[in-house]
């Protein structure tokens, strides 16, 4: 039993770490600001999510009762991450950051109308 739980915990930690890694690779590899913005959203959702599930499993099976306060981390991340992404994107639009040439639909952007 002990071993199965430990294997599961390890599995979830690895999944979380893998997604955080992919998110960071995206951050380094993608060519423009708006595309790079997609990297961190992954790291915060599945990356942290995997670690949290691992932590809940580990601390809940040590005989001290259910441990669920890790879920709060996910909850607050889910509330704050989209807001910060939105603000970053808005600032980038305002500063007219350059986008990759093949980006479509740029004609309709509300750029710089805040002056």
């Amino acid at each position: 039993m002990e071993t199965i739980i430990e294997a599961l915990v390890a599995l979830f930690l690895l999944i979380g770490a893998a997604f955080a890694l992919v998110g960071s690779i995206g951050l380094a590899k993608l060519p423009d600001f708006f595309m790079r913005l997609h990297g961190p959203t992954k790291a915060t959702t599945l990356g942290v999510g995997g670690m949290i599930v691992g932590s809940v499993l580990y601390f809940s099976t040590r005989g001290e009762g259910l441990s669920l306060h890790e879920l709060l981390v996910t909850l607050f991340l889910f509330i704050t991450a989209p807001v910060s992404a939105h603000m970053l994107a808005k600032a980038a639009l305002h500063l007219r950051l350059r986008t990759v040439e093949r980006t479509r639909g740029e004609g309709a952007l509300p750029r710089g109308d805040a002056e």
Partner: protein
Amino acid sequence: MIAPRRWLPHPLLSLLLLILWLLLFNTLSLAHVLFGLLLGILMPLFTQRFWPGSPRVRRPLHLARYALLVLGDILIANVQVARLILGPVKKLHPAFVIYPLDLREDFSITLLASTISLTPGTVSADVSPDRRSLLIHALDVDDEVALIAHIKQRYETPLREIFEC
């Protein structure tokens, strides 16, 4: 007897505060349940004036189902985007998409925008000043119309059922 709306203006918020309190202390002891209940009743009362307009949840069960749906989609979309990121960058077709909103209330628009940002592959970047459209940046789209239809049918329609009519 005072009308329940007066002393319990946001029943769901009260419940959420109670659950938050219990989770923070990681316990179910009677003292914490009572104190959590007290906080859950007092905090909405004291902050009520700061609420721009009180969002009314008409179907709490649908809200729970919506949360599960979004969680599932986050899982699936994460794997898809991971594949996109690890694949060749040259093949990606990023695009800005103007998404026409049917929702009218600030709170439900916020929820929709957050959903769009949380599901990987799309980030909501701006709301038009008249609140009739959202600007979305998508990492890889072939067909903007299909993306709009997908969001409309999968996220916006349930949200409208929960909050607006």
